[in-house]
């Protein structure tokens, strides 16, 4: 263990701990943009700079190993001044569209500009412009808002493993690009949207959720995905009793299987819930056509026919296909219905199909 002092507070951490981790353990709120605990370190955005007593330069906390006896200040005047300049530099290539941006209210750049009182940038005269067009139905790419933190590149390579995107060009013209700057659909992209998950600003957003509600307008409900058997957990975003999106939960306790990572179906395949095609009333077939019916009518109809068949042909003339989509509780009741209420073991579901 090594001992260091952070904002006047002494803390012990294991050797090899980064200054950022040590600061967080000491309760300091360090702003970060390119840092992600699940990705390899980039050390590129410099938002996390801190002052170490006796050192000539500020250090990027995320990539600096903590050393015994270090005395760290995380909000000294020099640190604050430096962060303000960094924010100004970032704003020089971030199109300020907060009024229409999906990420208004959940944008780290916006939060940090607010925190440090940065209203505009002195470096605005040379804003590069990038095409917004990517004709895919899942991910909106607006690189006029990109701050080049490269988390999308790293998550694509390190978590999903698709390696669909990388940094193209240098300096002011650097941007995130597929091979030969083509469409995502022509790249190795699998539209998992892990890039949307890690983007700290509004450069990468979900087209499926566009315009349906920002984070401060929605409630989030932790649940388990309805598609394959992996059992990924995520949050359904709800606004006015409608599902308007899915967001990741990146906590290994709440998301033990996937730790926030999702696939294209989990992240972008939720709007069937809100489909106009949903069945909203019971139906009964009459003269070959299904017509709306009341619950009482439909349930009585079904129950009477079941009783009739059971009386005439015995319980084994009836069968249930239960559901691999439904919950445990419902499957339990469904098989109990057929075994206990009707009296047959003709119960199966599509495990084989």
């Amino acid at each position, binding site marked *: 263990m090594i001992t260091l002092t952070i904002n006047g507070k002494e803390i012990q951490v294991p050797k090899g701990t980064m200054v950022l981790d040590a600061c967080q353990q000491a309760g300091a709120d360090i702003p970060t943009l390119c840092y992600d605990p699940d990705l390899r370190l980039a050390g590129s955005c410099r938002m996390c700079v801190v002052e170490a007593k006796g050192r000539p330069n500020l250090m990027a906390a995320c990539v600096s190993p903590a050393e015994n006896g270090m005395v760290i200040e995380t909000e000294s005047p020099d640190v604050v001044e430096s962060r303000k300049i960094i924010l100004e530099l970032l704003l020089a290539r971030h199109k300020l569209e907060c009024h229409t941006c999906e990420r208004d209210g959940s944008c780290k750049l916006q939060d940090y500009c607010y925190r440090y009182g940065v209203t505009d940038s002195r470096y605005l005269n040379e804003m590069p412009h990038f095409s917004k067009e990517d004709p895919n139905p899942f991910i909106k790419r607006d690189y006029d808002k990109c701050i080049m933190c490269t988390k999308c590149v790293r998550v694509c390579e390190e978590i999903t493993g698709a390696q669909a995107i990388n940094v193209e060009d240098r300096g002011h013209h650097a941007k995130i690009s597929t091979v030969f700057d083509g469409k995502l659909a022509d790249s190795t992209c699998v539209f998992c949207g892990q890039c949307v998950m890690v983007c700290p600003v509004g450069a990468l957003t979900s087209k499926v959720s566009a315009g349906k509600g920002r984070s401060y307008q929605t409630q989030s409900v932790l649940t388990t995905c*309805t598609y394959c058997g992996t059992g990924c957990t995520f949050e359904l975003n709800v606004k006015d009793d409608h599902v308007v999106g899915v967001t990741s939960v990146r906590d290994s306790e709440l998301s033990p299987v996937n730790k926030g990572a999702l696939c294209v*179906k989990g992240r972008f395949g939720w709007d069937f819930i809100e489909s106009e095609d949903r069945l909203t009333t019971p139906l009964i077939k009459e003269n070959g056509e299904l017509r709306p019916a009341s619950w009482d009518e439909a349930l009585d109809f079904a*129950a009477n026919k079941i009783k009739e068949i059971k009386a005439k042909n015995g319980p084994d003339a009836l069968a249930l296909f239960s559901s691999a*989509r439904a919950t*445990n509780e419902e499957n339990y009741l469904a098989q109990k219905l057929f075994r206990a209420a009707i009296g047959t073991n003709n119960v199966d579901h599509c495990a084989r199909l």
Partner: protein
Amino acid sequence: MTNSINELEKDATAVFLIGTNTTENHPIIGYKIRKNVRYNGAKLIVADPRNIELADIADVYLQFRPGTDVALVNAMMNVIITEGLDAKDFIANRTENYEQVAEVVKKYTPEYAAEICGVDAEDIRKAARIYATAERGSICYAMGVTQHSTGTDNVKTMCNLALLTGNLGKAGTGVNPLRGQNNVQGACDMGALPVSYPAYQAVTNPDIRAKFEKAWGVPLSPNNGLTIPDVVNKAHHGEIKGLMVFGENPMVSDPDITHVSESLDNLELLIVQDIFLTETAMKADVVFPGVTFAEKNGTFSNTERRVQRVRQAITPKGDAHPDWQIICELSNRLGYPMNYSSPEEIFEEIRTVTPSYAGINYQRIDNTGIHWPCPNEEHPGTPILHGEKFNRGLGLFHAIEFKEPYELPDAEYPLILSTGRSLFHYHTGTMTRRSSALNEFMPSNVVQINPETAAALNIVDNEKVKLVTRRGSIEVNAQVTEMVPAGVVFTFFHFSEAAANILTQAEVFDPVAKIPEYKVSAARIDKI
């Protein structure tokens, strides 16, 4: 799965994937395996007739002929025994019937199997050595192994391989079926099977039956029930008169849809409970509108046996009711009262009759799900099965001979047709085809054809063709791709308007599991 998902990312030092296109069908598991290979140096063996994404980073890729799994894995075992790579202590202490397997695999030399499987004998040797010498080797498979007339044999062969190398009971090992539906594990656990009550307790066992008769307060049938294929056949013959289909769509998912359709038409009563008017619901006499996972509380059990919470986010649409309430209402009308105030109350009852779930409650899984078996509330759950001993005591080897698939290509139908899923859709498409982005990205079915086969048939990419088997035909666009080998074609089963299961056969199933042979049908392609 005998083991848990995260072990594939961290603990396994070799992964043997067979019959699972993991990055498309279980993407998160696929990503974890790829991460383990790229960053931890885990070895990867991929055996699949299709050149799937993970084949690109495999140490050995075995592009074997569909349906020859037993020959391939028997040959791997032949190599392992011949080269003395078997886990002799594990075999001696924890298994039985080894000698019979050793005898049977003798003739499956790599050269012999290479001939059957259409792979290089040397690659079989390499694969066998990698898996057998790995410190912790994991086998993962999915429907590519099971959906065969020899599905049960195929699975037993995977178990043999794990037993032979002692790759069981430790982190990063195991025999791991990757299950394709959110709660297919739970549906099985809850007794949605014709032969068992919850927790796989046999309906034919008098003691077990007495326990459930006491719990449920009525006498219960002592006879095994019928599987789905048997129900469909008996409906066709008029022996099954009434069927309730809850959250399933056999008119798209079941083999030989023409046959299924005739069977459903023959019923006196078809009840369908679903969220959409599915192809099956259209045939119903009465339809109950259920709700999606977003509109109800409950639990799902994933492929690694982890029981996790499902939480209601919105109120049910229109006059739709949570499915558990519909079942209760129907039961009440049948004179068997079911009065539960919440899914949690149902779960509390489940615990009392399901020993593997006895220790789980909603409070314990509020944050993190628990793996069953979990026999009591102090038990942490069981991510890894078979640690000290197997359920039956010793692990049983099964000597299995290779059998050809039921329907082999011939002059009239010279191609092998396999069916399966795309990354962008799920099962019969009821949900994904109504998800705007997914359906926009992949709006229609295709048939994948190798360039060589396409050239021989004078077919170009994107050309509409007729895919034909003895059961029927569908019209689909050709996708000319090296993903499939010459002579093998592949189509997706998500699309009711070009339904793969019009083509599949419902004559011969696996004799034990009654699973259809979706991975091998004899087919041909006609130009239109």
